[in-house]
Every structure is written in structure tokens, then in C-alpha cells.
């Protein structure tokens, strides 16, 4: 699948392919939906909207999960 455009994902440049839906990105990263949260350009994207949300060139995307901490 050919690259369509670049976004910044968790601080690093990332190539988005033809399928520019957020949900595709999540799945391609093999992330468990129930365990992560997503921000696009500082706006949280509720899980309910992942399917219809499309990425755009230059989007700043943050995907977080839980790690060990005190």
C-alpha cells in the first residue's frame, strides 16, 4: 500500500497509507482498543468516533496507554 501522507505520531514522523481512518492506524499498530487513548492535534478522539475519524497530513497524533508507575 503506498504512502499517502505523513503525520507526527507520538513525536515521530509516521507515514499514513491509503486507508487514512484512525481505526486502521490503531489496528495496524495491533493496539488493544480498550487500553489506549488517542489525541489528534490536542483534541481527544472518543473511541466511538475512531471509525469515522480520518487522519490528515501533518496531524499531530498522540496514542497513550498505561505503564508501570507509582
Amino acid at each position: 500500500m503506498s504512502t499517502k501522507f505523513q503525520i507526527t505520531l507520538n513525536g515521530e514522523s509516521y507515514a499514513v497509507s491509503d486507508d487514512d481512518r484512525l481505526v486502521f492506524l490503531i489496528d495496524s499498530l495491533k493496539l488493544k482498543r480498550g487500553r489506549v487513548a488517542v489525541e489528534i492535534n490536542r483534541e481527544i478522539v472518543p473511541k466511538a468516533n475512531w471509525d469515522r475519524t480520518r487522519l490528515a497530513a501533518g496531524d499531530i497524533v498522540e496514542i497513550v496507554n498505561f505503564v508501570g508507575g507509582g
Partner: protein
Amino acid sequence: MKDDSFALAGRHYKSRLIVGTGKYRDFAETRAAIEESGAEIVTVAVRRVNITDPGKENLLDYIDPKKYQILPNTAGCYTVEEAVRTCRLAREAGVGDLVKLEVIGDQQTLFPDVPATLEAAKILVKDGFKVLPYITDDPVACLRLAEIGCAAVMPLAAPIGSGMGIRNPFNLRIILEQAKVPVIVDAGVGTASDAAEAMELGCDGLLINSAIASAKDPVAMARAMRLAVDAGRTAYLAGRIEMKLYATASSPLTGLIR
């Protein structure tokens, strides 16, 4: 003693010990220690997912959110905005609205920034969060956080990870006597007797991470802390003897042979 459950943010817990998940060798040790600790509430940090190796095992594969109340913290946040943003992401990730608020003021001490913590607490409470704020052992700051609507206050006993124990039991006593919300000692506990002492002062709960995770044998120390919290709480309820400078015999003075 009949029921002595710990009520926090509308739920009741059997254990008064809250444990962190940082600094363990691996997830297996994390799970083993947490099970041994008997804790029902477990703190976690919010961080970017690992893009380069996304399949990688995740903490929640070992600590089941159905079994444990997950308590996301805002460790590493130095501003109101970072802390609020982190809490919102944590809630979106789906572990509920209970959060441990930390707004750090200084890298060396990791002491909280009191004004920023109060401000962030206001925003989060208004936003529907149940806020557990990490704060100094300042009675006034604790009063304000309760007025704001925090679910509890979490004064520090000593710097995070210092293991210094309860450096100022007097401030804690004042905080406890004035408290209208649960008081959970957060940070500074080093060993079991520190945990028992905190509970004997009347604290409602205790949050421990480094003292367990960085002990030579973390699983054994987790057990020690579980026992110590139970011991301290039980002693608090049992009503200790008064302190006296002089002695009182424990054997009878009558019936001695002559």
C-alpha cells in the same frame, strides 16, 4: 472488630494499602508483589504507546482491570495543563474517573507545586473526576483540597522514593484531626514500621511503590507491608496504652514468698 472497610470515592475496599507498579524488574514480579500486597487499588502511569514494538506485552496483561481498581497518576507533569490533559487521556483509555493528581514543582525533591495542584484539582473536579491529590504535609493545603471537592488528600510522609518514613508526624496528626475527607499517606515510607506508624496515627490509607519494588525481595516486602498496614490499623482501633516515663509492674506485688 466488625467491618472496617475503607470507603473511597463511593466504593468500599478491604485493603487500605494502595500500591504502585513502577520500578519492578518485570511484569511477572509486578503481579506477584501486588498479589502478595493484598492491594485492591493500583497506580499506573500514562505514557505513549511503543510504536516501534506495538505488539509488546502491556502492564494490563498482568494487572487485570476487572480485578483491580486502576488509578492513573500524572507523575512527570510540571504544569496544570499537562496534568489535566493526562487525566483526560487516562479516562478516555477506559479505567474510570479516579485519578491520582501530581503536579511536580521540582526535579530534585519531586515535591508538589501547591498552587498548581489546587488549580488542577479545581478543573478536574469540575470535569467530573474523582481526584486524589499528592500534596505536602501542609494542613492548609489539605483543607483547601477538601473544600475543592477532592475525594481524599494524599500528604507526603517524605520525598518520593526516599524511604525516610514519616518525617513529621505532627503535621499528619493535625491534618487528620482537621480532615473531612480520607487521608492517604503518599510517598516516603521505607519499611514496615513506617507503614504501621502511619496507620496508628489514624491515616485511612497508604500508597507505597518504591519501598516494595526496590526492596531486595519485593514480593516479601509486599507481604510485610500488607501485614504492617493491618497491624497498624488494628492497633489504632484496639487503643494503645498511654506513654509514661516510669514503670508499671506487669506481675502482681501480692503473694510474693518471704
